[in-house]
């Protein structure tokens, strides 16, 4: 492991990669601050730029963008009560009241220190857990992988959208349907191409991400007449006050951080759960842990109440890399985008990544840590200035997002059919978003579609067409039982609310 850490450090600490982490954190913070634009959009917009890099550098840039976007989301939560991403909603519960009391700088500092500590602790967990899990996951067979993917898709549908399980499952099926377009990987038979040569290779992952996130988010902002710039202007005008944290507040943070980090990391590892659930659970858990006097302060600017969700959401971000790096199965929409980018580089994440490309495996882990340091040292003091840079009017911001989306696709194929297809999918996605059909399940399903069909094919061929493979192996059975429990829980909660 020490050797791996050194490999990772030497890769992550190269001048180019440090620069990439800094650029990534900076760009991520700017995009994450804009209400409505989250880490997935931020990463998607970076994809065209990563084409010219080697895989480690590209992935390091994306990891920086991811953390930067989460940090940017916290900033708009604290200063405006307008969370950029769902994972920072709980941050606003105590962060915003603190800002209203004239302690915005302090709230930002507590959020940054908590994020840093949560990220650091979970990076250590990742350092220990990922190689061990890689070894364990070598024992996984096709039926287990198939069951795990079913679990991941069910979990993201259950957790990513409140009370919209069926809608999310429909998006999963739509994502899988889109993934079947093009040549069948084994027999080379073309499917659903309708004799269009441009569809023979299937629909590109970048096209789907750009259409359903970057482009459709830009169209949604215009459609709803929202002006993200209005919010950022407010940030730049807000008086931040001191960013110093006193001894009493430090002690409070020191109590909260360890437990929230552990909870956040564990939740992050679970497929589909991620930063949003981690931050809410950490907030709830912290409220139960503190004494009666502190409990009364929750919702009114409590240090515990701000530190807990911030620690947990960052810890969950690191945790979500565990299934991606060890099993090759992303647990969240954001890591699904990263998986797509990795596949674009010709790298298949999974248990063997640890052995075949140790420099990528370790450099991603080490760059996460470097990203945290960059966020703390550079971004925190620069927040008021970053916010001023953000005073780009909507009239310029939206065309620029569209420009990045189209360029990303054009660079891949130099073909205008893909641009037409992207515009079409973006229009459909915009209407679906309007009626709360969630997009992350669609992305995850699209990314997993090929692998899912492959593992199902192998499982069915081994069991000679019998469905016995679903319960023959204990691991498969346990994973499927967890899936059934999640589905039953969704049905139960539906009926309970009705009654």
């Amino acid at each position, binding site marked *: 492991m020490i050797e791996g850490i050194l490999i990772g450090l030497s890769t992550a600490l190269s001048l180019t990669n440090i620069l990439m982490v800094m650029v990534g954190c900076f760009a991520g913070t700017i995009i994450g601050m804009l209400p409505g634009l989250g880490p997935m959009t931020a990463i998607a917009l970076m994809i*065209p*730029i990563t*084409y*010219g890099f080697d895989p480690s550098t590209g992935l390091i840039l994306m990891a920086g963008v991811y953390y930067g976007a989460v940090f940017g989301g916290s900033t708009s939560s604290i200063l405006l009560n307008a969370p950029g991403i769902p994972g920072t909603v709980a941050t606003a519960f105590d962060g915003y009241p603190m800002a209203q009391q004239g302690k915005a700088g302090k709230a930002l500092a507590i959020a940054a220190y908590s994020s840093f500590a949560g990220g650091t602790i979970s990076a250590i967990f990742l350092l220990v857990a990922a190689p061990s899990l890689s070894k364990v996951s070598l024992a996984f067979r096709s039926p287990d992988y198939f069951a795990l993917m079913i679990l991941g898709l069910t979990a993201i549908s259950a957790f990513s959208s*409140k*009370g*919209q399980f*069926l*809608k999310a*499952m*429909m998006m999963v*099926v*739509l994502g899988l*349907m889109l993934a*079947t377009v093009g040549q069948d990987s084994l*027999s080379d*038979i073309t*499917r*659903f191409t309708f004799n269009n040569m441009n569809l023979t290779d299937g629909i590109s992952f970048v096209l789907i991400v750009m259409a359903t996130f970057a482009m459709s988010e830009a*169209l949604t902002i*215009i*459609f*709803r*007449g929202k002006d993200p710039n209005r919010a950022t202007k407010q940030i730049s005008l807000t008086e931040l006050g001191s960013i110093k944290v006193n001894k009493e507040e430090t002690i409070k943070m020191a109590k909260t951080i360890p437990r929230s980090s552990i909870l956040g990391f564990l939740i992050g590892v679970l497929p589909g759960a991620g930063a949003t659930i981690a931050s809410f659970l950490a907030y709830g858990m912290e409220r139960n842990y503190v004494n009666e006097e502190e409990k009364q302060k929750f919702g009114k600017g409590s240090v515990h109440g701000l530190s807990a969700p911030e620690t947990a959401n960052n810890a969950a971000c690191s945790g979500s890399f565990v299934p991606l790096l060890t099993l090759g199965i992303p647990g969240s929409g954001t890591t699904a985008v990263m998986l797509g980018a990795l596949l674009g580089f010709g790298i298949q994440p999974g248990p063997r990544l640890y052995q075949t490309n140790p420099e990528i495996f370790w450099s991603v882990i080490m760059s996460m840590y470097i990203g945290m340091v960059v966020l703390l040292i550079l971004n925190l003091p620069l927040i008021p200035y970053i916010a001023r840079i953000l005073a780009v*009017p*909507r*009239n*310029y911001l*939206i*065309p*620029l997002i*569209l*420009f990045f989306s*189209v*360029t990303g696709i054009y*660079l891949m194929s*130099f*073909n*205008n059919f893909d*641009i*037409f297809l992207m*515009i079409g999918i973006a*229009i459909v996605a*915009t*209407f679906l978003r*309007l*009626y*709360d*059909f969630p997009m992350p399940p669609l992305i995850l399903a699209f990314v997993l579609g090929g692998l*899912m*069909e492959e593992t*199902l*094919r192998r499982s*069915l*061929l081994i*069991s*000679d*067409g019998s469905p016995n493979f679903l319960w023959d192996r204990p691991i498969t059975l346990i994973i499927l039982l967890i899936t059934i429990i999640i589905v039953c829980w969704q049905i139960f909660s539906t009926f309970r*609310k*009705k009654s």
Partner: protein
Amino acid sequence: MRISPTKFISLLFLVLSVFYLYTAYNIQVFAFDENAPFNARTFPIYLGWAGIILSILKIILPEKITTEVNHKLLDYKSIIYLIIISLIYAAVILKIGYFISTSLFLFASYYFLGERRWGLMFILSFPFVAAFMYLLHGLLNIYLRDPFLKYIGVMG
């Protein structure tokens, strides 16, 4: 009877799933693969049925949370302009090249979104695209096809 938009979308999804399933059953597989436990049709057939079942459930089950959208508040005009500009952009990008088409696309988008500061609009279109192309092509060595710039000798 008024059908809610969510149920209408589910109905469209049902139609799509039926069409997908029909197409899945018509996928031509090799003769020796016809009765195999798994062939190119199997997974799409499962998906087609899953789509049909889920959309029927969404249509028949009462809605727990209804999503209301006030269409009067939606800016249809700007979105239609943007989509038309994007479609024109996609149609001409191969003919007139990346640089000119992208710069014109940005300029037109700023204009239709209500911007009238001509100088800024110009800087954020032509010089901006040129700088971006230099970043990609010149610094990052990412190939960017532009027959026009190649023709006038700007790009190699």
